[in-house]
């Protein structure tokens, strides 16, 4: 039976639906203590002294530690996993990031001390008694302001707050194209700062076994092996063999749980100090001020076109906010996951992008669903729409005219990537038809009759997923390889355990990966167990992010299964007294070609473990491991169309229709893929209409620090989504898959914003910044109405 391509219901659902999931905060270790982290209330201050004496004497308190305690113990700083070089060849500024701040605090929420007590209430109460003497200093939160002369400095040894000044592309070719352009379109835009907000707050439990010297960390991570490597090797100096990291059920990540966070190191280190397990769970307000944020770009973009409206060149200048410290993968987001995507779906022959990354007194910024690709797509699809408007060409037609044609693959872009496959024209037509694009003007007129401003907006996108070929990313500054591992352990009775380095925190790997295995080995789904999230069980793993699990992790499973089948063929050939070359494997049976003689997969498995009648030169057992290093990125693409109505009296937006047509390559479980798209769209629509992280420019205070202030998309903010797929296969991985996790968050912000601008175009609006809240829209409408009224 073939399960690939069918909507198999998820195997993990039973435990979640019955309240039997095991999230980190559900775990309690014997004799555990509770940690409360005291955080800076200031955006920027020097610590002139800390008095912890009273807290240490408070009821139930086992220990109080400060940054100086950790430094004195030789604890290292949180490392950065990617080094970007500036255009002059110099390496980025990489200031130290101590788990607990020792001398300076650099953002509201910067950890200053930890109190460890018998109960969390006791730890919190004792923390109130810690006296920290702060000498407040001026703060800067806006990335553009941070670059200006005289701006407050985040680090004394990083002049001008500049982390790096990076560029990509051929500036001379771009300048030449602009000089000969028939038309140049320019736009300034902001990509708003977001807070990822996985529903499960981060949590960590550290444990130390004095008898063996073994450390264990339970943590809410998307990649436990990466945490083991970073924390073990760089922060706490614990060899891998003595450090186990477990990421059990994890309640969403969206990027924010990739990184190695201070709290993981604090509880692990403290557990050894106090000789008892130490547990920390974030309150949501702590999540807002300590989870890595996303986006936060300020960009100027110019597009040059010829007389036939073909794109000649694109020039982009971006200031990217890094926050107060470099999070694990932060430097690569506004560079190699952004600048390299600026060809989009188009044949633009010359592209130049420069990115200045700056430090500010804000929470560190890193990858959030899409990571660089939503920022690239937003500016591209905005400038293309603006060009269509200025040239008087239909936005769909302008895109068609500039698409990379379906017969042009492999296609080398001017910004380093080689796309392997795609068919953007067909995907767009699919979306246009589903959205009844042709009938829109009638609907606009009908809406005007009801006093509503109706608009339609298109966004096409390309993303680079399946991250990533190790040698390529190594040459670009990655300090890690980005392969994936899988072990296929066939048990004597023929059931199979898959040990995967991918990590599921909602993606449904236990189902999708089982489908691959059941089909390939011809065994029931129930005979397959997917094991993930524990460094003590899994050989190795780089984890889940960048829509890589199936393309990279799944490919590793396929490779390991190939080895299983090859070894099984040898065993079967021996049992069947046939030549190995004559033995075929299909539907769970090894058969001698052209005969009815066969051995089942189960019989072969049993023989491997009970090798009484067995090939002389073959090892017993049926257990294979593979590491798969991708040959290229994968390139999912799509066309999203939003149709909206604005109530001009209130600024309220109703999403009347949202159509997404995507090319994810081969689809293993269409129901899970649709769910991924829905979730991505909700986050993209959230960015466009609701969500924005706001800091006070004067004080650096976080103004959106709870769900009272930060607008999360709710059920009645969102429409039903109309989805379709147009499949072109990835040419370089064994499954032909491309990845689907980030698509919605990439396409939706531009589709929604283009629709809003389309609705407001009659008022003379040419651009809107996100989030287009009712207040912002109402003000824009009022401003543009006044001159009309004055006439």
């Amino acid at each position: 039976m073939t399960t690939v391509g069918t909507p198999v219901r998820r195997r993990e659902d039973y435990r979640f639906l019955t309240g039997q999931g095991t999230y980190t905060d559900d775990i309690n270790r014997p004799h555990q203590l509770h940690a409360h982290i005291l955080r800076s209330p200031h955006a920027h201050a020097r610590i002139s002294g800390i008095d912890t004496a009273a807290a240490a004497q408070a009821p139930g308190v086992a220990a109080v530690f400060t940054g100086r305690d950790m430094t004195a113990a030789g604890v290292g700083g949180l490392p950065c996993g990617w080094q970007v070089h500036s255009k002059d060849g110099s390496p980025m500024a990489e200031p130290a990031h101590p788990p607990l701040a020792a001398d300076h605090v650099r953002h509201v929420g910067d950890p200053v001390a930890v109190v460890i007590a018998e109960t969390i209430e006791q730890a919190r109460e004792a923390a109130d008694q810690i006296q920290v003497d702060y000498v407040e200093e001026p703060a800067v939160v806006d990335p553009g302001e941070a670059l200006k002369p005289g701006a407050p400095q985040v680090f004394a040894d990083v002049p001008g707050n500049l982390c790096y000044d990076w560029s990509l592309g051929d500036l001379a070719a771009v300048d030449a194209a602009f000089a000969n352009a028939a038309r140049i379109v320019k736009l300034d835009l902001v990509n708003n700062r977001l807070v990822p907000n996985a529903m499960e707050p981060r949590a960590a439990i550290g444990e130390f076994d004095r008898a063996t010297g073994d450390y264990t960390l339970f943590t809410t991570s998307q990649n436990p092996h990466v945490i083991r490597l970073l924390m073990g090797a760089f922060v706490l100096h614990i060899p891998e063999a003595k450090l186990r990291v477990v990421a059990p059920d994890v309640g969403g990540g969206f990027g924010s749980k990739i990184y190695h966070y201070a709290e993981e190191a604090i509880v692990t280190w403290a557990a050894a100090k106090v000789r008892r397990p130490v547990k920390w769970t974030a309150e949501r307000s702590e999540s807002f001020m300590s989870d890595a944020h996303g986006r936060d770009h300020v960009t100027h973009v110019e597009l040059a076109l010829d007389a036939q409206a073909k794109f000649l060149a694109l020039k982009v200048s971006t200031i990217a906010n890094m926050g107060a410290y470099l999070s694990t993968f932060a430097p690569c987001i506004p560079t190699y996951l952004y600048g390299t995507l600026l060809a989009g779906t188009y044949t633009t022959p010359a592209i130049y992008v420069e990115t200045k990354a700056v430090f500010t007194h804000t929470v560190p910024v890193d990858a959030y669903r899409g990571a660089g690709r939503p920022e690239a797509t937003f500016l591209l699809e905005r400038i293309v729409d603006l060009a269509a408007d200025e040239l008087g060409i239909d936005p769909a037609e302008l895109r068609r005219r500039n698409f990379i044609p379906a017969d042009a693959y492999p296609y080398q872009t001017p910004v380093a990537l080689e796309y392997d496959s795609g068919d953007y024209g067909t995907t767009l037509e699919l979306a246009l038809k589903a959205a009844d694009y042709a009938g829109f003007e009638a609907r606009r007129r009908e809406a005007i009759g009801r006093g509503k401003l109706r608009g339609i907006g298109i966004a096409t996108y390309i993303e680079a997923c399946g991250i990533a070929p190790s040698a390529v990313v190594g040459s670009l500054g990655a300090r890690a390889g980005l392969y994936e591992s899988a072990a296929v352990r066939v048990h004597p009775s023929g059931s199979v355990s898959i040990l995967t380095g991918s990590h599921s925190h909602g993606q449904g790997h236990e189902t999708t990966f089982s489908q691959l295995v059941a089909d390939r080995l011809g065994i029931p789904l129930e005979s397959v167990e997917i094991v993930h999230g524990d460094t003590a069980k899994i050989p190795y793993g780089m984890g889940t992010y960048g829509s890589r699990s199936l393309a990279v992790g799944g490919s590793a499973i396929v490779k390991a299964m190939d080895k299983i089948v090859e070894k099984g063929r040898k065993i079967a050939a021996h049992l069947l007294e046939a030549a190995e070359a004559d033995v075929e494997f299909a539907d769970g049976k090894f058969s001698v070609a052209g005969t009815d003689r066969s051995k089942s997969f189960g019989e072969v498995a049993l023989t491997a473990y009970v090798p009484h009648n067995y090939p002389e030169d073959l090892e017993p057992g049926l257990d294979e491991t593979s590491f798969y290093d991708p040959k290229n990125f994968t390139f999912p693409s799509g066309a999203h169309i939003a149709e909206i109505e604005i109530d001009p009296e209130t600024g309220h937006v109703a999403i009347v229709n949202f159509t997404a047509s995507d090319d994810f390559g081969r689809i293993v479980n269409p129901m899970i893929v649709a769910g991924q798209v829905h979730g991505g769209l909700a986050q993209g629509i959230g960015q466009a209409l609701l969500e924005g992280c706001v800091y006070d420019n004067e004080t650096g205070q976080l103004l959106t620090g709870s769900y009272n202030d930060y607008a999360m998309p709710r059920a009645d903010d969102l429409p039903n989504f109309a989805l379709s797929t147009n499949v072109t296969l990835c040419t370089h991985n064994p499954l032909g898959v491309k990845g689907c996790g980030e698509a919605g968050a990439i396409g939706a912000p531009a589709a929604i914003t283009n629709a809003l601008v389309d609705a407001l175009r009659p008022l003379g609006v040419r651009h809107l910044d996100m989030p287009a809240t009712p207040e912002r829209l109402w003000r824009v409408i009022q401003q543009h109405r006044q001159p009309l009224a004055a006439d």
Partner: protein
Amino acid sequence: MQKTVSLTVNGKPVSATVEGRTLLVQLLREHLGLTGTHVGCDTSQCGACVVHVDGEAVKSCTLLALQAEGRSVATIEGVATGDTLHPMQEAFRNNHALQCGFCTPGMVMSALDLVKNNPNPTEREIREYLEGNLCRCTGYHNIVLAIAEGAAVMRGETPPANVHGAAAE
């Protein structure tokens, strides 16, 4: 100050010694080990902690444990019958209405409350009722479908054909 609270949880009498400030959700999670009820925020907005108290849906982070004295509390752990899922749980599974699973217990408890008060809710009514439950994974699309299907089954009707084509294995 420690006090003893006695109540019924999922049909069984229980008692525990708690502080005056202990929240109902802490009683459930920390004292009774019922970790299916989750805490996703500190402002009573996310709805991951929804349980039923005397048949009414409440956010268990907004109630003190002592306020549950003598009450009957139902949590996600008590919804299925043995190994058999409740029709609403089954509908969530059929419609892929959960991904990471963290908001799911609260969503199911809220959905049951909605259907109790409105056995045949429209899509708009479902979306408006879910105002107090945040989900970051699903975009709510499949949750809305699941609640409609669960409600239909609870009314004794044959649910509409599954839009995903999913069927029990």
